């Protein structure tokens, strides 16, 4: 069986995979990182989003063999070693942007990319549009949108506007 070598959350792994093994299967089943979820089989739900070399990608849509040599960040790799949450995690908690938590890892990973790639600001409409590839059945998105809006200034080193309080 072919072998892939990759870095996940700063840790190096070399793993044997089948040609058809998906990145999400590699993460969940071979490396034991079950924070990345599988919610569909048509690349529609975004529960599986991780970051490959800092870009958010649906890990159900990538073959494990394609990420040889890449650096992956999953939801487990976001918080600091002392447990301090990433501002996006913190704002999700603060704004009650999760209920069952199943969509949450993919939402958070995608939201971080969304904020990072929009350094000049993010409107509500842009956030909603940016979440198009992530399904949540619990929250109605209202609080997810709020959380992302509140994380933007934190991630870009600005003060939180009063409106996000």
């Amino acid at each position, binding site marked *: 069986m072919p072998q892939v070598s990759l870095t996940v959350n700063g840790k190096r792994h070399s793993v044997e995979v*089948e040609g*058809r093994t998906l990145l999400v299967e590699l993460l*969940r089943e071979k490396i034991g*990182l*079950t*924070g*990345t*979820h*599988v*919610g*569909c*089989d*048509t690349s*529609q*739900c975004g*529960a599986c989003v991780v970051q490959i070399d800092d870009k958010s990608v649906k890990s159900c849509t990538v073959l494990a063999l394609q990420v040889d040599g890449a650096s992956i960040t*999953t*939801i*487990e790799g*976001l*918080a600091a070693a002392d447990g301090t*949450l990433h501002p996006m*995690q913190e704002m*999700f*908690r*603060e704004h*009650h942007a*999760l*209920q*069952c*938590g*199943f*969509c*949450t*890892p993919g939402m*958070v990973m995608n939201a971080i990319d969304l904020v990072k790639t929009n350094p000049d600001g993010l409107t*509500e*409409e842009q*956030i*909603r*549009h940016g*979440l*198009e590839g*992530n*399904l*949540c*059945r*619990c*929250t*109605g*998105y*209202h*609080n*997810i*949108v709020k959380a992302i809006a509140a994380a933007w200034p934190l991630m870009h080193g600005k003060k939180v506007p009063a409106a996000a309080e």
Partner: protein
Amino acid sequence: MGFEGIGASVRRREDLRFLNGKGRYTDDLNRPGQLHAIVKRSDRPHARLVGIDAAAALAMDGVVAVYTGADLAADGVGGLPCGWQLHNKDGSPMAEPAHPVLAIGKVRHVGDPVALVVAGTRQQARDAAEALVISYADLPPVVGVRDAIVAGAASLHDEAPGNVCYDWQIGDKAGVDAAFAGAHRVVSLDLTNNRLVPNAMEPRAAIGDFDPFTGDHTLYTTSQNPHVIRLLMGAFVLHIPEHRLRVVAPDVGGGFGSKIYHYAEEALVTWAAGKLGRPVKWTSDRAEAFISDAHGRDHDSTAEMALDAQGNFLALRVRTLCNMGAYLSTFAPAVPTYLYATLLAGVYRTPLIHAEVKAVFTNTVPVDAYRGAGRPEASYLLERLVDVIARETGMDRVALRRRNFIPSDAYPYQTPVALQYDSGNHVMTLDAALAAADFDGFAARRAAAKAAGRLRGMGISTYLEACGIAPSAVVGSLGARAGLFEVANVRVNPTGSVTVFTGTHSHGQGHETTFAQLVADQLGVAFDQVDIVHGDTARIPFGMGTYGSRSLAVGGSAMVKAMDKIILKGSKIAAHLLEADVADIEFSQGQFRVKGTDRAKALAEVSLAAYVPHNYPLDELEPGLEETAFYDPKNFTFPGGCHVCEVELDPETGVVRVVNFVAVDDVGRVVNPMIVEGQVQGGVAQGIGQALLEAACYDAGGQLVSGSFMDYTMPRADCLPNITVGTESTMCTHNPLGAKGCGEVGAIGSPPAVVNAVIDALSDYGVRHMDMPLTPEKIWGIIQAGRPALAAE
């Protein structure tokens, strides 16, 4: 640390694990030596099962076993039981056909389980399932509810002649007929309630495990009610006594009803693990979920209202045809009857109601409760009908509702369809919602939209529902085969921290937070000193689980009862320690105090004395401080409220944009406002989904056409508005918390508000009614065909 008791928006303690990817959902679990199973399903809607040739599959790499219905039958495995028996108009019991775990003789819907393939890996099992050769002899499929009852329709079950499951009625037929005969006017409406797929984001999964030395079976499953699964699967399907069967429902990624039921796969992995002596795991993929998770709704109704000249509702007559799908799911018969027809009074004082409900079998996935379960169908029917009445009589829709509201001083109110409402104030929620939605400013917004070439509409819905299920004796008399009490065990640990074991289950509701707030508040201990345990039959005495917005109203009440017992026993211990009379002890804020003095013992001191009983009234009291309560509710609870929806639609494309949504609900006591708001927003999103986007569509050949997220339109962030939530509560009068429940109100109140808004936006086009979902295609068609009545102006 601020106030963390009842009424505080405490941030959720479960979030930390979910936000760090440390949730433990069933598919995240793996047992040593575990095998993997794939369920081979029918791709035919209706066929005789002629043969299954597993030879090639069995010869494949890693394949351990292939099981069919015959293997289960040989082991005496029973069919999946139905938890509710209804009776026909003539008193005879409903048809209750067998529901085999794996198909025997026939398949009856696309997705019907035919065989179980077990192998070393999931891929191996999947490959082998592909290699099974299954021979079918096709039979004509029965798809829609109306197809099921036409003469000459194919028959699904020998036990159900004419495909009828039951033909049921409630209310005073003669009285209603007489009222119609003398009515000033009758308004009628035909409408359907679209079939939906619940689509919790976590697909179902199950792991069976067996210890051959103790004979203990364990099932890990995505369930809203592990004890119910243990009861049903143990007693009826696999014949495993309760003490040998443990059911664990760990973190569960949303349920919305679809994870209440006992499903075939749970029995299959439990049974196969016992057979093979190794753990067996099954995880659904999404395509499989679409054709195996119970669907919701699917009604076809006619509603008629008799009116007097002033617009007073005199009598309501409803005829509904509803779809059970191919088999009876666990609670299916109750949903379109006792959770639907009993709600047809709604918030109105309609004195006479008669409803007939005919349930039929079709070659489709079984239908059962989905968020709201019966009540969304009732509120949709009523609130659409009321809007049509307003239009046809020329009355103002708000005034018509106000005229017919049950006045708040009429509570408790006995409806003509069995329920007795305990409390409510419909004027209060209506006024608050209209104010929050700026109802008065709507005309100006509509004019502005029109000037910009868009159509704007506003819709309201004033609704009521019944939840907090349910009084056991009442539901027993109506055909339930289970009690619907709830259980709590409250353990004050020796040093004063508290562990609470609850029979309810949290799969997004935040019970670990809300219940800890409740217990912290009542026992006067710090929030972080309270731990909530749920989801494991080995740890929790008993329970009926979470559905029907029952967890706080019923489960929370059980906690209050158990805490009352703790306080009673603690008072006796404190009286002993303080050398006082127990009648002089009062408990508040964590202190047992001798009334009128500063002599007191903290709960932690009392609990230490209870576990180290050196100075302790051992002749009167047992050591320890732990109490269990079973709470059986006295009545249903009746949340309700008013939802207001404002839409704008583009006549060029037919696309509807919900521009504002306001929900003001009466949910009784609120423990955590932040969580309540989130529950309502989530429910409203599902309601908007039903109204505008979602439909489980079968083609005439019995294939589910909308069988993936590419075809079934789930609400996404960019098709929903911000959802403004308010609460205006009256207290439930019969449970100790005054709680009514908030889990389903969003999905119950919202669909008619949305549809009423769209119809309102199209008012110039002479459209009276449209069936959900209101897709751009349908709306565009109306606009193209319609001749605006006002065009001539």
